[in-house]
């Protein structure tokens, strides 16, 4: 009987240890995997460090979308605007079909030292009624009716 209780305690401690271990790994990785969602204005105000992953939401400025051949291998580049501030975005390996001038866009990537945004992905949406933020507004990353 004593041996049984001992075995049980060993089990319980081992199970708890596993839980604590996984919890610790989760907690430490949560902060480093956080990607903030900002407009160009918010990015400017916060002073995002170069190299920190963020999502940038806004509109593709009219007349700014340059694509394809010239930047083959570099994807596309365009100016992302929220009506107040502008950011030059270079999107590597992007399907340009996802982007339209005057239409909203959300890109994920990092700022480089000169203030240019290097997008690693243009975030595609299932939903056609997905809306980009209005001028000056915080990006609505929810779908709207």
């Amino acid at each position, binding site marked *: 009987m004593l041996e*049984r*209780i001992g*075995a*049980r305690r*060993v*089990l319980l401690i*081992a*199970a708890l240890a*596993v*839980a604590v271990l*996984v*919890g610790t*790994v*989760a907690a430490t*990785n*949560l902060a*480093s*995997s*956080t*990607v*903030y*969602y*900002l407009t160009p204005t918010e990015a400017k105000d916060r002073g995002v460090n170069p190299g920190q*992953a963020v*999502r940038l939401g806004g509109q593709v400025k009219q007349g700014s979308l340059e*694509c*394809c*051949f010239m930047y*083959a*291998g570099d*994807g596309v580049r365009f100016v992302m605007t929220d009506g107040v501030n502008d950011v030059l975005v270079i999107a590597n*390996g*992007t*399907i*340009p*079909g*996802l*982007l*339209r001038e005057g*239409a909203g866009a959300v890109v994920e990537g990092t700022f480089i030292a000169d203030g240019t945004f290097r997008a690693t992905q243009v*975030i*595609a*949406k*299932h*939903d*056609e*009624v997905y809306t980009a933020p209005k001028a000056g507004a*915080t*990006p609505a*990353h*929810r*779908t*709207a*009716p």
Partner: protein
Amino acid sequence: MSAGDLGAAALRAALFLSLWGTGAAIYAAWRRDARVLASARVAAGFAFGLVVIAALSMMFALATHDFSILYVAENNARETPLFYSIIGLWAALEGSILLWTAILAGATAFIAFRGTLAIPRLATTALAVMFAMLTFFLLLITTPAADPFARLAVAPENGNGPNALLQNHPLMALHPPLLYLGYVLTSVPFAYAIASLILGEGGDRWLVATRRFALISWALLGVGIVAGAWWSYAVLGWGGYWAWDPVENAAIMPWLTSTAYLHSVMVEEKRSLLRSWNLALVVATFALTILGTFLTRSGVVNSVHSFSLSAIGPILLGYLVAILVLSIGLLLWRSARLRDAGPIGTPLSREAIFLFQNVLFMAATLTVLLGTLYPLVAEAISGAQLSIGGPYFDRVEIPVALALLFLMGIGPQLPWHGASRATLERQFTAPIVAAAFGALAALITGTTALPAVLTYALGAFVLATVVQEFARGVRARRTLHGEGGVAAFANLFRRSGRRYGGYVVHIGIVLVALAVATSQARTVDAERTLAPGDSLDVAGYTIRLEAIRPVSEPQRDSIVADLAISGNGASEHLRPALVQYPNSAAAVGSPGIGAGLRDDLYTILAAYDQRTFSWATIRTRVIPGVSWLWLGGAVVGIGAIIAALPAPRRRVVRMPVAEVAVSAK
């Protein structure tokens, strides 16, 4: 009378019957009144028929482009092909809930007719729970929040057409219904668990009665998830299959708790342990399916799957809270009756491994839940909008998955209660050797990332234990019953389907793990802008751009790149395209995939000369082993079918004794 009127009327009649059924089933369970129960049965049957009629009416309205119905106008167009019109039933919220309700009504009818015969009181109470849930969903789809048959005052000339991504691949016919079936069927074990708690039974009858339902819903959920990954791979044009998107997470969480449950159930059956734990797992699984629907359908999370925001969000949240309060309340109230029949065995017993496995599955579920809900909590507290990236999930879940793979090899090899040293040696010598060979195979094929090498080693370990089990099973049958090799092998499935079907499931899981490890570790990318006649070399393939041309179809316009593939023994044509649907602002990439058992050649038309078609930018990925992911999913499904099939009646020979001797000697 139009199809829309018929459907709307059928739903209202079904609601009336469902309300009757709820009351009748409660009364019948309370008073043990067979006549009232009979009326509830009839109500369940008719309610099911009526909801099916409503769903068929919607399919008919979609197929005949009846744009006077708002849902049809929003999700269908004259140009939509018949196939995509019909599967438009689950292209958006209202239709999906209609399909959901139809499945729920089917499950309710099944319990009403089959369940109530074997264990009348428990099943009648469960029937009342099912009816209550059915009533909720029928109320939902007969109110404006999610009314599929809502009318437009003036029918438009043409509809909006289905979402571009949802009419681009036939897998859309498979993935949502499988997931919904899996989701909805978890309500059966839940209803029985609640019934058992209400009646204060404290025994295992609810669990035995719903074992098959739990297995089938688990399998459908799993196969539905794999089908979704396949759809994402074949349609979204990013060359991946899993992105830790909130909606993917919402689907995987109930699958994780459900997997934990299928294993801990065995501990309760064999050893009468973990009783309240199993009830909690069933409740958690069901609650997570509702949470998943809420996350998908309320628009609270930022996801590629978040469909339009609707009034349904708060209603589903209320439903979820009600379910949790009811279940937890019942569990606390009845906890005194849920005593376990004894202590658990030593750390090296099968039940102990199951316990560890459950701890790990819980850890996986909770960490996925944390990563999924953290952005919501952070926004509520600080107002900052953020998302949790894939790296979090990869770093947390990959170690947990590897540990689970390890336990998958250990658990079935250990006897209940505890193992001796001799048993350990006999069971694990060959698998450990196999694990070494697995690691070697990974290194030889150039798979050097540590998680991938471990996956190969553990995969080989598990496969070896399964082969060993089959070999011993066959040998035992040959000795005991004098059967031939093939007959003995087939009889393992027929006579002990649950056990050997389970091993087949394990093989499927190993295939999935190997496919994920291989494809993640060794994918090669290349991209080049080509003029017609130019070619691009990647990982032994030569991809020649033959032409780039526009293609016009009634429902869409595409730009297609004709690619001739050679090298690595391949000789085929791939046609990646950019597809423009009239209702879509942006073109949708449609990849061209040359699938193979060794690797997939994944090609994307990234850009092209819009004036003279004189060049095209082709992006390619060579993704090794990814086909094994879909195959693994299919193997899991086959294993689950074997395990769910009823065993034939036992012959006079006392087979079970022989089997126990094989596994536990």
